[in-house]
């Protein structure tokens, strides 16, 4: 089923795409009153691929991911995960996905151990292999000393680690990560990046949203750029450079060009310079 060929992976590397789609989003539309949060968005994430969803604040990234998880109902369009409709069978979708939402609303009154017990039980995971996986993750993320503390007492970074472990406990085929690196220290960020890469190299797929262009450039094979709910562009970095006509540019430069924010950014900087110097 998966005959992925890795070509290059230093910056938005490309690969052959003759494998099954992990995620398929087709013509997705979602409105909140008069606001069209997601407008006719389509993209695909393949097995073995790390796909980045980029966009400014309020662009519609989180809404798209929530519709994929079956947490929000789209006005129109479809989304499937490994062929399962997010709208028709959200439980099956959640069985196959490890999801880290942007907000950190955990069970504050439980300890991470109690939380992982709960998650493993709900997912009916095999105890021995899961415990070994858990031990490895806890050790890798330097999380042992927080394992039996109440979650409410944990720092933001350690809460994020809790969420990441919880999402990967069942070794899902697809990881959907909404701003996964927020609040993480340098060591944990590096470990998480490596884990994501290893996950993809093992045939798993990753769909992540991020504001950090360096992360996307270093980690993702392909990206989609959303602005004001509209899909502006998608593809490898080279394809985006061609589209933006910015040869050799960084992803940040490409992003600003495609979202037509370069002038806005310059105006904003000028205004701030004036404000701070007056």
């Amino acid at each position, binding site marked *: 089923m998966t005959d992925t060929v890795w070509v290059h992976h230093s910056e938005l590397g490309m690969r052959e795409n003759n494998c099954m789609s992990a995620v398929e989003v087709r013509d997705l539309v979602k409105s909140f009153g008069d606001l069209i949060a997601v407008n006719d968005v389509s993209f695909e994430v393949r097995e073995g691929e790390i796909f980045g969803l980029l966009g400014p604040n309020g662009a519609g990234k989180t809404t798209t991911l929530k519709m994929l998880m079956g947490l*929000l109902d789209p006005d129109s369009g479809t989304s499937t995960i490994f062929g399962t409709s997010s709208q028709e069978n959200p439980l099956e979708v959640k069985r196959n996905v490890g999801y880290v939402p942007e907000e950190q609303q955990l069970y504050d009154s439980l300890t991470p151990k109690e939380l992982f017990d709960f998650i493993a039980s709900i997912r009916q995971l095999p105890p021995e292999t899961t415990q070994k996986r858990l031990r490895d993750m*806890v050790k890798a993320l330097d999380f042992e000393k927080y394992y039996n503390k109440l979650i409410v007492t944990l720092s933001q970074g350690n809460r994020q680690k809790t969420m990441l472990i919880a999402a990967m406990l069942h070794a899902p085929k697809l990881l959907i990560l909404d701003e996964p690196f927020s609040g993480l220290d340098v060591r944990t960020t590096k470990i998480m990046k490596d884990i994501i890469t290893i996950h993809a190299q093992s045939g798993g797929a990753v769909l992540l949203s991020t504001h950090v262009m360096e992360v996307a450039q270093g980690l993702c094979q392909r990206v989609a750029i959303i602005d004001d709910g509209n899909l502006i562009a998608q593809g490898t970095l080279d394809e985006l450079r061609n589209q933006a006509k910015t040869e050799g540019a960084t992803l940040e430069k490409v992003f600003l060009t495609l979202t037509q924010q370069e002038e806005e950014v310059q105006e904003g900087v000028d205004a701030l310079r004036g404000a701070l110097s007056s």
Partner: protein
Amino acid sequence: MKFAEKWRIAGVIASEMRFKAFLEANPGNVARMKEDPQKVMRQIKSSGQISAFFTVMIILLLSIMSVATTFASDAVGTPYERMAMGFSLFLILSFVVVFFMNLTSTTGFFTSGAMDLPLTLPMTVKDLEGLAILSFARVLIAPAALIISVFPTITLVIFGPLPALVALVGCATTVALAMHALIYFARWFYVKTHTTDKSRLSGVVRVAASLGLVIGMLSIYSISSYIPTLIEIFGSFSASLGTEGYLMISLLYPFSFGFLAGAAAFGPPAVSLSVWTAVAGCAAYGAAGWVAFRRSGVNLRSVVTGGLPSLDADEDAGEVTLNVRRPMVALARKDLKLATRNIGSAFLFAIPVFLVVVLAPVFQIWEGGARSLTAIMALSYANLFSGLALIGILMFDTQGASIHAGLPISTYLSLRTKSAIASATYIFSMILIALLLTLSNPVSELIPLTAIIQIPAGYAIGLTVGGMLYKYRGGGRAVAVNLTGDQAVSILSVALSLGVGAVPLVCYGLVLLATGMHLYALIAQALGVIILMAAVLRFVPRWLVD
């Protein structure tokens, strides 16, 4: 900073707190907030209005009943003594109302982070303390303002300006002392719930504290039933006081205010020295109230700035282990853990205890032994409380939205788990009722069996009430419900649980009326339970969405 400006900012902070509390009260709210924000705002407004209505009713009832004590039968004490006791009773109950009705809001104030932004602004420590206490006061403003205004106004109309002034000082002092106690208790509970103390004693302390609080909250709702008894006790108490007793009691809070108000309304009592001891007591408690009010700002600031200790900071790391159970067991264990670690969530445990308190008069009114009507009344009470128990269990889901969002938990599994937990309370209540009926010399030995046959109806009640709340509050998806913040759902749950639980009882009653045979009536009740279960299992899943 001017007071008006502080008051305005405090209003913004208090609104933010209510808004966050509403969002956190339901895991589904966070994901779906954008879909219809106006609907959420309307829900916040309507639940606030209903809560305010209940608060007004409770305080009005307390005020009227307390003032009416003065004009009760002359058989108990003099009007002076009755007024003194009525006043004192009102102040005690006001303390209870302010303390219990605001406990969850207070802990929410500590954890909401609503003061985080002002803390980063260039404000003096004094301004921050003032802002913290004003924000806190705006959360408590409804009961506090009502207590301080309604009772003195009624006193002014009936007894004149001097007793009204005493009432005003007494009420203000009570509110200040209650706020101080509230902050201290919430602070203690906050530290306790932030500590993974492995000792069983710590868990017992938490459960006991929660239980006490929940019973206190329930007591407020049923206080009207006990006011005549309390008046009688206080009346007899005042009539039995000797000279030394008068002097001693008039020095104690809240009797000082009661004695002084009585003297202001009816002239000096037989033991005229007690007026002066009451004046001294009032002055001392008034000063204590003022100091408590001032210190509340410092205490609040220390809490909202995160100055509370985490007692297990140095605890050694434990071994990484994992225990996998069946999904339904895991859900139930998680809920029960949350229940013992959150104020208000222990509502569930208090149900059977409270049921006994309510049922006591029901069993006493029947002379010549318990009849079938006694059983039907007792079972109807239990049905009523089972709906409230289910709401108590739904309160557990006020945490964990991010985890819930990613887990394959079907709405029906969630509902079945909640109903199973509620059923445990129901079974305990039914056994209790069967025992009480047996001990009440029933006219037929079969009567206690009505409670045993009724047991499966507890599960049906749980599924129906929970299913209906999921349908109307969550569009078919699992929702959390906050009893103190959304009293409309309490009314809905009580009506539903009474209605659903009545199906087997109606079968029992009708067949008993038609045949006069308890055995046939019990068979009809059992059939009613089976029909009820079949209907609920068939229709409730259709209301739910995953």
